[in-house]
């Protein structure tokens, strides 16, 4: 499967291997420096430490939702819920006719709070929820399996994040946030920034090799405040980064460049998208 995640991981490996090369050279340098002068050795060590820190700092970010997709793939969720979980296979004898996909409007018929989502995965049905567990026994040939015994807590957390990303489901989401997500989806933002903006595709030649997710730590490096966020969306770039030679180099070199949406977005729509991103980051 050529998921964005895999690409991102490959890019990550590449970065790591280049660091190894750097390390090797460093050790030769150390060896060489031994018989010569002390201060040079220190300088070399500092340079190596700096390089490692640099590599660590600029490693591509892999968010929980992206890891969750791997989990879903491993557990076989897509076999019944369809590719990416968008539409399920036929379930003869069920009221729904099909195994439900994970679109938020569908998923909200099955869960009311995140706890329900976890229980569906663990036990094959909500157990402790107010969601009338005794009545949840829907007829149909295909039953949701219980993953309680084979899923780790970390995997469960990741999977839940992935499901939230795919579905866009959230309890009690305010109108403006809901509409912001809808507009972002319509404009195609999620094509690059990942489902619900929670992490997506790679971008060869960029600083980190991936397009930043809206909910992770990378976002903070390129967006310091709301004004910068709006500038990114409207212009596809921000002036601050152009002043930085290193950033300038990567922005120039990267394959995918953020498109300017100025001509295609209203002030209100912009406000709503900003509200959505703000909401997502506070989650």
């Amino acid at each position, binding site marked *: 499967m050529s998921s964005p995640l895999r690409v991102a991981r490959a890019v990550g490996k590449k970065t790591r291997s280049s660091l190894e090369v750097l390390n090797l050279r460093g050790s030769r340098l150390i060896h060489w420096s031994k018989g010569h002068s002390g201060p040079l050795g220190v300088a070399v060590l500092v340079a190596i430490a700096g390089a490692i820190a640099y590599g660590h700092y600029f490693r591509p970010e892999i968010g929980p939702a992206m890891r969750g997709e791997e989990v879903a793939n491993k557990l076989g969720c897509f076999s019944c819920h369809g590719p990416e979980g968008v539409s399920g296979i036929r379930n003869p004898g069920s009221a729904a006719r099909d195994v439900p996909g994970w679109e938020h409007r569908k998923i909200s018929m099955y869960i009311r709070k995140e706890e329900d989502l976890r229980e569906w995965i663990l036990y094959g049905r909500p157990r402790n929820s107010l969601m009338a567990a005794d009545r949840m026994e829907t007829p149909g040939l295909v039953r949701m399996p219980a993953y309680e015994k084979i899923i780790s807590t970390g995997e469960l957390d990741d999977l839940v994040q992935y499901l939230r990303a795919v579905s866009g489901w959230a309890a009690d989401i305010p*109108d403006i946030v809901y509409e912001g997500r809808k507009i972002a989806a319509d404009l195609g933002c999620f094509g690059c920034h990942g489902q619900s903006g929670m992490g997506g595709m790679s971008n060869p030649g960029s600083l980190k090799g991936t397009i930043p997710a809206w909910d992770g730590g990378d976002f903070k490096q390129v967006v310091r405040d709301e004004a910068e966020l709006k500038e990114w969306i409207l212009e596809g770039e921000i002036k601050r980064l152009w002043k930085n030679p290193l950033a300038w180099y990567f922005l120039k070199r990267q394959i995918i460049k953020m498109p300017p949406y100025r001509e295609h977005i209203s002030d209100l729509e912009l406000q709503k998208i900003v509200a959505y991103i703000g909401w997502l980051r506070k989650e």
Partner: protein
Amino acid sequence: MKHPLKHPIGPLAAALLLLLWTALSAEEPKYRSPNHLVVSPDGRFAYAVNQTADSISVLDIRARTAIDEMPVGPRPSHADISPDGRLLYVSNQYGDRVEVVNLKDRRVVRALEAEHEPYGVTLSPDGKKLYVAESISDTVSIFDTRNGKRLSRAHSGRGPRFIARTSDGSKLLVSNGMSRDVSIFAAESGKLLETRGLGKGALPRQITLSSDGKWAFVVHLISHDEQVPTQPERGRIHSNGVSVLALDRPGHRVTLCLDKLLAGAANPWGAAVSPDGSRLYVTLAGVHEVAIVDLKKTLAIVNETSPDKVSILEEDVELLEKRGFARRVTAGGIGPRGAAFSPATGEILVANYFSDTVSVLDAETGAVRAVIPLGKPVPMTTWRKGEMLFNDARIGFQHWFSCASCHQEDATTDGLNWDLTNDGVGNTKNVKSLHDINDTPPAMWHGVREDMDAAVQSGQRFLGFLPDPENHKALLAFIGNPKRAPNPYGKDRYKGPRERGRTHFYNARCDACHPPPLFTDQKPHDLGFGKPSDRTPRFDTPTLREVYRTAPYLHDGRARTLKELFTLHNGDGLHGETRGFSDSEVDELVAYIKSL
């Protein structure tokens, strides 16, 4: 003298009396609320159908007094008298039957089992057949009065209210309270002959015929739901009038407004034609007046109106003053509804719903000759005052409409889509029943009003009603404590499908957004029903309580029936997992939902 506490009987009795007194005074006073009037063939007596007292008052017309009152079944709404004057047929709206009252000993002798909420009843000229409009079943039934058996049953439009027959007994005309039309049936076979549209006419009430049987007159509102309701002036939201239908010309209709340029004629209700065929009397329930319509002038206007002028004429709120085809006089009471002509005295009798009186008007001049109280006057509770104000257009600008003009007299719905400006324009919304507004905030389809109080206040601010703290309090008391009709779909005959439907309800995941006991999660959801002009793609989940009487469905009323909702409008399965249901399973699901 002994200390009173040593003998506890005295204080105890006093305490008991006090308790009894409070219990008695706490009991809701019984209003009669006369809804309809029938005059006996000999012209001596009039019978008032008391809708909220479950009784019939007997009035001696000449003596101007109520001489007797007899109990009948729950919520009597309409009645007709046999040609010999011996039997009175009374529809029990909440009893699902028509009771037969023997007028000699004034007691119920028999009952005919009807479908749900029978309203209008009328007898064949020979009295052998009874025609009944069943307002919740949307059907018209024909009964054999000798054995009480139903001979036939046919579908009418939505919410059939009043029923009239031609003098030769060949045709039946039914005014459909919720579907802007009149159904015409063959009286013999009970077959539907024609559904005649009323144009912009809405909430049609009483229908009656000219004495020669050529013309039918049906009173109704003219509701301009095609435009944004921002200006009540000139009846641009609602005007009020009477439609004249030529029975021998299919599709013929001419509507005349009974409004004046600066004074609306809100909520026309009852209609009666004088025996000589010269006048039509129309009660205007929202302005407490009676319109005396000169039929000669009226028919002249009707005859000169070509088909292409009909839609222009129905908007002409100056017509009454320009052409003088009618006069409006005071009804002599509050909330005039049923009207009947008394041939023996040459008077018109009017049932005043909120005054609990019958007023006697001179048929010629319209002067009030007498007001007959149906019993001791009962002081109005805040609730009752609220009900009165709800139906009163005098609290509205120029009296064009009352709350009941969109929500009917029972605070439900007119079934129309209106484009209120509170959520932007260009996005019409189906009128919601107010019965659950108090229990299930927020109000309005987009939840733009946080609760009932805010909604009623904005109604006063933006829809031309005069804000008044006392009125506001009373209106909230009425709207917040609705008197619900007994749900006919809870009956035993629906038990099987209803119980299977309950299982389907949970299997289809309906309870995700419509959880009991309110049957709404009071949250907004996007099921893909919105359009770009909507304020947001999400709509507040409506309650399912009383959904059997709030058709059509969805925010813009796109589904005419609940079945349509699950079949035509749920192709993606987002509004309940019903795509796997068979036809009969959908029927069972509907049977359950209707019982809520």
